[in-house]
């Protein structure tokens, strides 16, 4: 009841239009800031979430750039490996062990004859993107499991098979084919059965289990041979991190250019996000200024009423609360509508990207919510301090 009388006394005599303008300005600012936060978190999600753990994106195979100077000496030194390990953008590092012995594979079947010399590589299991129980080898195993790059199968199916008039093979069929693997070195030779157990997108080599590689490199290779790795695989949170590509460049290392191309995208995304964020912040400060001027104007135009209300025994604080409720309610609505707007935008983005095989959360991120709450706090503080200051001023002038 008292509230109704106060409403009657403290009118928006400063003008409805100005109030609406201030609210619109504030809304645009809120939407810009929240969308900047949401874009940034979407970008990180695309890079880091489990669903998007694009094997290409997070694992990089790194080796020295071959030049005329280092031909034949392309292995990475202990020092270089240690330095690489220390970099903050690298989560873990695994060496790719190359086979130092001669190897060949040969078909077991008359129907489908083939023979080829081959070289293997091995890598710690945690870096392999094929999840299979068959990835195991010891000296008593019946066959040698092998992981083949997807590119090889594509090359065979879409180029080689046409030119040689051979049938195309599905991954399932390839996995069923057993073949003979022969290994030679230090005057010895051994043959065993081999089988493809999976296809990798991550590493473009014929992979064998580390245990097999250690065994074979020990048995068929003279101990004097250089066993330093030439290639390593690194795992990184963000292959688009410009610091990573700068480091590789500085150290004369290269990786798949396709992967570091992300760093360009990243810079562009950062740029767009920053522009949106800065514009939002600028608009926010102007909108807050307009809003606080509006509050001042409202209080100033009702100064007689406010002074008399205080004279009658209203505590300035409770009048402040009344005014706060009056102005801040609109602000809460603005932020809520901002959140709804961003949520709708996020959901549309999610539906749009899902067709493009990119998984994004259908909901806004926790950071966006936190930013919204922070914004509310900032606005509340601005409202509160303006109201208290100007109510006090009305009192002081009396």
């Amino acid at each position, binding site marked *: 009841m*008292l509230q109704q009388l106060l409403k009657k*006394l403290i009118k928006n005599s400063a003008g409805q239009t100005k109030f609406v303008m201030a609210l619109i300005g504030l809304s645009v600012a809120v939407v810009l800031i929240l969308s900047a936060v949401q874009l940034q978190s979407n970008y990180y999600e695309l890079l880091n979430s489990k669903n998007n753990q694009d094997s290409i994106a997070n694992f990089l195979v790194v080796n020295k750039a071959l030049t005329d100077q280092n031909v034949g000496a392309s292995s990475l030194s202990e020092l270089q490996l240690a330095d690489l390990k220390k970099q903050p953008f690298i989560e873990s590092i695994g060496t790719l062990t190359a086979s130092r012995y001669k190897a060949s594979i040969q078909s077991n079947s008359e129907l489908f004859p083939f023979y080829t010399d081959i070289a293997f590589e091995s890598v710690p299991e945690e870096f392999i993107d094929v999840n299979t129980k068959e990835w195991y080898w010891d000296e008593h195993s019946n066959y040698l499991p092998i992981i083949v790059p997807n590119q090889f199968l594509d090359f065979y199916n879409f180029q080689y098979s046409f030119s040689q008039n051979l049938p195309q093979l599905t991954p399932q069929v390839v996995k069923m084919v057993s073949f003979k693997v022969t290994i030679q070195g230090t005057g010895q030779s051994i043959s065993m059965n081999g089988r493809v157990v999976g296809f990798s997108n991550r590493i473009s080599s014929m992979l064998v289990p580390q245990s097999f590689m250690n065994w074979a490199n020990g048995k068929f290779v003279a101990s004097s041979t250089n066993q330093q790795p030439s290639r390593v695989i690194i795992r990184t949170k963000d292959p688009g991190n410009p610091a990573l590509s700068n480091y590789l460049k500085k150290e004369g290392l290269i990786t798949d250019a396709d992967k570091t191309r992300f760093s360009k995208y990243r810079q562009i995304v950062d740029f767009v996000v920053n522009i949106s964020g800065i514009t939002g912040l600028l608009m926010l400060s102007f909108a807050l200024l307009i809003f606080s001027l509006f509050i001042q104007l409202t209080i100033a135009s009702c100064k007689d009423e406010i002074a*008399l209300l205080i004279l009658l025994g*209203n505590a300035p604080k409770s009048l402040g609360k009344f005014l706060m409720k009056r102005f801040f309610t609109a602000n809460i609505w603005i932020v809520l509508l901002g959140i709804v707007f961003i949520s709708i935008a996020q959901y549309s983005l999610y539906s749009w990207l899902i067709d493009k095989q990119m998984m994004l959360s259908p909901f806004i991120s926790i950071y966006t919510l936190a930013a919204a709450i922070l914004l509310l706090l900032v606005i509340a503080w601005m409202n509160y301090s303006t109201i208290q200051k100007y109510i006090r001023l009305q009192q002081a002038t009396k």
Partner: protein
Amino acid sequence: MKLVLDQLIPYSLKDKIGRSGSAIWNQTISFSQSKYVKVEAPSGTGKTTLTHLLYRVRSDYTGSIKYDQLDLKSSNDNELASLRQNHLSIVFQDLRLFPDLSARENIEVKRLLTPNFSSQDQIDEMAEAIGVSSILEQKIRFCSYGEQQRIAIIRALMQPFDWIILDEPFSHLDQKNIQHSVQLIDAACKKRNAGMIIMGLNKDDYFQYQKELVL
């Protein structure tokens, strides 16, 4: 609630007070609760100034004004609000009503600060008693000064108080209305065991004063 004035001198009257003697300015006086005090003040002696100082509309003075332990000058917002809600009531000479509210709303603004103390019915009863029930729903700006004066009186009686300050409250009322208003105020004071400080230009016998001072 005891009211004590100690060496009170408003800045605006500093020069004047030195020349002419006063029973209040620059004196130490105390008023005990439930006493009726008449302050007789010829024009220009600072009658309204005193009213404003006692209600802390302004605080440009030296000396002190104390309601019990509460020093008016150093009181904070909340103490002041509580004093005005529960212990101190006033009828200003210039009435200070909200011109755009109706008479009833003007009274309600005050009553709703202490809503349990008096009821809406009491507004109607008092308005009936002093002849303003017909204008209760009218905007104050359309009421005559005499009607406004009576609304201001009713407003002052809506709250609990230990002291009521009246600054020429009957200046625009006829004898009959004065009499009714006096009865109303007297009853309200008696009911609350409250004291009264009434300012006037001349001697009068509206109430039975325990103290009569010349400003």
